[in-house]
């Protein structure tokens, strides 16, 4: 429970700093010496944050939808970390998977029960293949995955932009890069569909996919032989070789699996949240996923909780921006602060005069050479 206390304290520290930023940035009020408004802004902002994330069914629905891609991409980054690989390419893999799912979505018109899983599968395959590129490059040439995945991210973004202007993908009545609509049967069913009259609850069953993904991740890591191999490889690649594990194959597979999860995130966004693809449907989720994996120490449960936290912040942030003067980019700041405070228990200890378990900080980055 000590680590839970540290997490909560880190959260609290981040919010305090965030509050300070809100106050200090209200230049107009401060100029007029109107401290009441400035401080008031903090309270109304945080209130909106809480209400917007968990305060109503609508809010919970919104949180669920924000959480889904974060959880799936979080698993993507985490599973790669476990094998000792730094997957910065979740964005590109999400785009690849999303486009694959999109294609299935608008070019087929079978019953939903076939279309939906097929689209998700297509997303997984698309993302997996894209992720495997970086894996193969690493295994065969030693090119570090940090650089290759960053390059691939950019390349994927341009590919998507181009594809969305081609006849195959572009919506026929539009000139901007926006895709055809996914067949209504191919949309991920809404979770709250059984509640009549609540069409505003947009949460979709991508959430089920995400939860299943976390479960599969846990089972894979702790109950399968390959999961054991991933863990050994990630901690000590020399020992993995000594133990007879085929490290090159594992590297490719790790990126393949990572890509698959991120691809499913893309599929879920396209067939669940939007119903089509625009240029930026992957947004910043790939980078957020890195923070999530780091926060959750790449463990399945930790990743899931971190994803829910970030999803809540995202949903709450939208409400905050709508209701108050505080823009949603504060959420980005809060996230950064949370990551920093969680990663530096010594700092939190110093601030709150609490005994911290400094423990052995295991390293995520092992240098460019391996």
């Amino acid at each position, binding site marked *: 429970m000590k680590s839970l206390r540290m997490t909560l304290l880190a959260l609290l520290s981040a919010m305090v700093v965030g509050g300070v930023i809100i106050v200090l940035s209200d230049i107009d009020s401060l100029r007029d010496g109107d401290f009441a408004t400035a401080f008031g802004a903090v309270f109304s902002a945080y209130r909106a944050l809480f209400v917007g994330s968990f305060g109503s069914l609508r809010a919970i629905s919104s949180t669920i939808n924000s959480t889904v891609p974060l959880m799936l991409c979080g698993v993507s980054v985490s599973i790669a970390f476990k094998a000792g690989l730094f997957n910065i390419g979740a964005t590109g893999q999400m785009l690849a998977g999303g486009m694959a799912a999109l294609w299935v979505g608008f070019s087929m018109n079978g019953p939903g029960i076939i279309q939906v899983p097929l689209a998700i599968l297509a997303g997984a395959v698309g993302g997996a293949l894209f992720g495997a590129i970086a894996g193969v490059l690493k295994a065969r040439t*030693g090119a570090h995955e940090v650089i290759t995945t960053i390059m691939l991210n950019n390349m994927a973004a341009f590919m998507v932009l181009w594809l969305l202007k081609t006849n195959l993908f572009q919506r026929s009545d539009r000139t901007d890069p926006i895709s055809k609509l996914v067949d209504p049967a191919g949309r991920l069913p809404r979770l709250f569909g059984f509640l009549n009259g609540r069409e505003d609850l947009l949460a979709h069953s991508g959430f089920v996919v995400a939860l299943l993904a976390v479960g599969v991740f846990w089972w894979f890591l702790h109950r399968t032989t390959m999961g054991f191999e991933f863990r050994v490889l990630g901690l000590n690649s020399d020992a993995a070789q000594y133990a007879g594990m085929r490290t090159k194959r594992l590297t490719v597979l790790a990126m393949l699996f990572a890509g698959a999860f991120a691809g499913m995130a893309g599929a879920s966004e396209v067939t669940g949240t939007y119903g089509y693809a625009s240029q930026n449907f992957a947004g910043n989720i790939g980078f957020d996923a890195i923070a999530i994996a780091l926060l959750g120490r790449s463990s399945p449960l930790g990743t899931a909780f971190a994803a829910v936290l970030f999803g809540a912040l995202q949903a709450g942030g939208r409400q905050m921006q709508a209701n108050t003067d505080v823009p949603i980019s504060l959420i980005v700041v809060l996230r950064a602060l949370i990551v920093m405070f969680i990663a530096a228990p010594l700092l939190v200890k110093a601030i709150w005069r609490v005994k911290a378990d400094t423990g052995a900080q295991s390293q995520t980055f092992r240098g460019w050479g391996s």
Partner: protein
Amino acid sequence: MSDIKSAGIGQSAEQRKRSRNVGVVYVVLGLVSATIFTNRPGNSGFKLLDDFIFVIPARPFAWALAITLVALGAAQLLRGMGKVTNVVLTVATISFVVGFLTWAASGGSFSLTGMLQDTVTRSVPITMGAIAGIICERSGIINIAIEGQLLGSAFAGSVVGSVLGPWPGVAAAMLMGVALSGILAVFAIRYRVDQVIVGFAINFLALGLTSFLASRVLTKNPQYNLVKPFSPYRVPLLSEIPVIGVVLFTQTLFVYVSLAAVAVTTWALFRTRWGLRTRAIGEYPKAAGTLGVDVIKLRYRNLLIAGAAAGFGGAWWPIGTVGRFDQNITSGRGFIALAAVIFGRWHPVGALSAALVFAFAEALQLKLSNLNTGIPSEFLLMAPYLVTLVVVAGFVGRSRAPRAAGQIYEAQ
């Protein structure tokens, strides 16, 4: 670029592989030239000076290029080129690019000088970011936060520059770079946090804070976001040289400083005591520590110097070009800078060449949308990333980074 020696005795397997890859690249480029570039008839005009247009007939040039490249490829694969390998590589690459431009511009004309000038100026933030990255990594600290530093400094430069003028703006930008470096330093060195985590956190922090402040403060107070950028300064005498004079010597202060920074950093790293100690703490900090070098203090100092360099790079947006700050104005250049560090194998000159490649592609893409090439602009924009990918995979590979980069130094 990479260090390629001739094939033969005394060469390591790594070098032979790279040498072979270069040969393959030549042949591939030659084939591209033969199949694609020869498709267009007509002449291409390259506008070099106001009154001088250099005309190249597209098809013959493409054929000549193709044949030369394939011959070079054969020579490289069979014998290697010894000392002149790098020179040949540079000349071949430039020729290929000229061939591409000739093909693209056939039947029309094309302001080459303007594009080159644009290239050089666009390389500034990437170069400065890469220098920051090199100094950090050579000292043993991974700096993933270059993007955040560029972004934060751009913001600071714009705001302070609007209120107090461009020179204080530059100073503010550099201070912001130093401050962000300071955060990285404290967390990574004192609190022993994983350097990559802190780096990403700083990036998020910078992105969030600058976007936040931009929408909350700057939109309502646009007077805080209006800077007068530097105008280009014509170096006396040197700027009269045809072509080069415009490209290299009619630029803003930013260009001159960034080129000087590359030279100074190279000299400092390999010729001074500071450089020896810096490289030592990046390779084997314990060795330096046991000899009395204060590893921690030197790392702090170097991080702050790197921060100033990145800060200067960030100031290029508001004070070197556009005169304002927009949300996420850096859009990934910091990561490009990181790629340039690796592409350039942790050497400032190598990083500069990488920066120029990227900048060239950016400049090219703008110009080419005017010409009719049939290639979607997205693919052209993709080109530098693909090139980096190929270079890193085929020529850098497992190449040696500073050995201690990223590891926590345990002093007592």
